[in-house]
């Protein structure tokens, strides 16, 4: 792009986004969400196979890793739930542990789930 044109354009775009933002501080987020919420809805609707849901979340995890941001609360736990329903217990355990590492606040619940998984009384 033309060097002399690009600066005014950028300034215009910036002031435009400042205006649009209004009372909000802007679209900067704490987490990188990708398709987490739509995937949770897919889970409830039950129209897509669990395998496809897990694949979509794994694909998005790679995107998140490449930007160095964090997956939102519940993302890894939800992936663990999908692996649980697919009978992939090792991967389930791994995801629940990752959730706990990223968010120690989840410790009580993750420990409850891991304990139940160990005794065979799954979920």
């Amino acid at each position, binding site marked *: 792009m033309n060097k002399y044109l690009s600066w005014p354009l950028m300034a215009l775009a910036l002031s435009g986004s400042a205006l649009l*933002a*209004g009372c909000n501080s802007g*679209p900067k*987020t704490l987490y990188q969400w990708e398709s987490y919420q739509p995937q949770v809805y897919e889970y409830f609707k039950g129209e897509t196979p669990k395998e496809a849901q897990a694949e979509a979340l794994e694909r998005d995890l790679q995107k998140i890793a490449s930007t160095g941001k964090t997956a939102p609360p*519940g993302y890894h736990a939800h992936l663990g739930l999908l692996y649980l329903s697919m009978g992939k217990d090792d991967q389930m355990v791994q995801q629940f542990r990752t959730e706990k590492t990223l968010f120690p606040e989840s410790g009580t619940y993750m420990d409850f789930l891991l304990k139940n998984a160990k005794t065979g009384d799954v979920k």
Partner: protein
Amino acid sequence: MISRSLKLMAGLLALAVLGGCVSPKTVDYSAYKQSRPKTILVLPPLNDSPDVKASYSMLSQVTFPLAEAGYYVLPIALVDETFRQNGLTTPADIHQAPADKLRNIFGADAALYITVTEYGTHYMVISSETAVTATAKLVDLKTGTTLWTGSARASSEEGGNNSGGGLLGALITAAVKQVINSSTDAGYPIAGVASNRLLSAGHPASLLYGPRSPKYGTD
């Protein structure tokens, strides 16, 4: 006479413009500030609307505003499965679950009880409106104290973007539209805006910022 009414109108307009972000409503945050919840357990919403999709459409979109406000939000679908495994299969049953059980199993400081009162599309002669309305109550699971209550409505017929959802809401709606076929579930993106408006922090009478937000303690 004319100039006086013009002046009055200009004054009112200025007030409306300045008003923007200011709300006359004041909220007592003393119990909330004393409780300082870190983790929030969102229970499947009660549904007073005729559309059976309302509860889970809303539930699947509450994590964004709460987590971005700085709270840890217990994993939505996994929590629902745990309730089912324990024989609690309807939102009404779950809303009756004792607080100490919820605290012990999920390790949550507070629970959010939501009721969806409106969800769906009204067809009119020349246009149609899809709207979602919900109310919410945040309850301390140790003391049983209500920390905060709120309500919000979102509609497909809203003009402009000066509403609570703002740019963020518009972005979410746009993102969501690509994923969900809105002709089969027109309420879903609107529920996303309503959820964002109801549960995001940083505006009058809203939830306070939680410990994971850089703005924690500033409101």
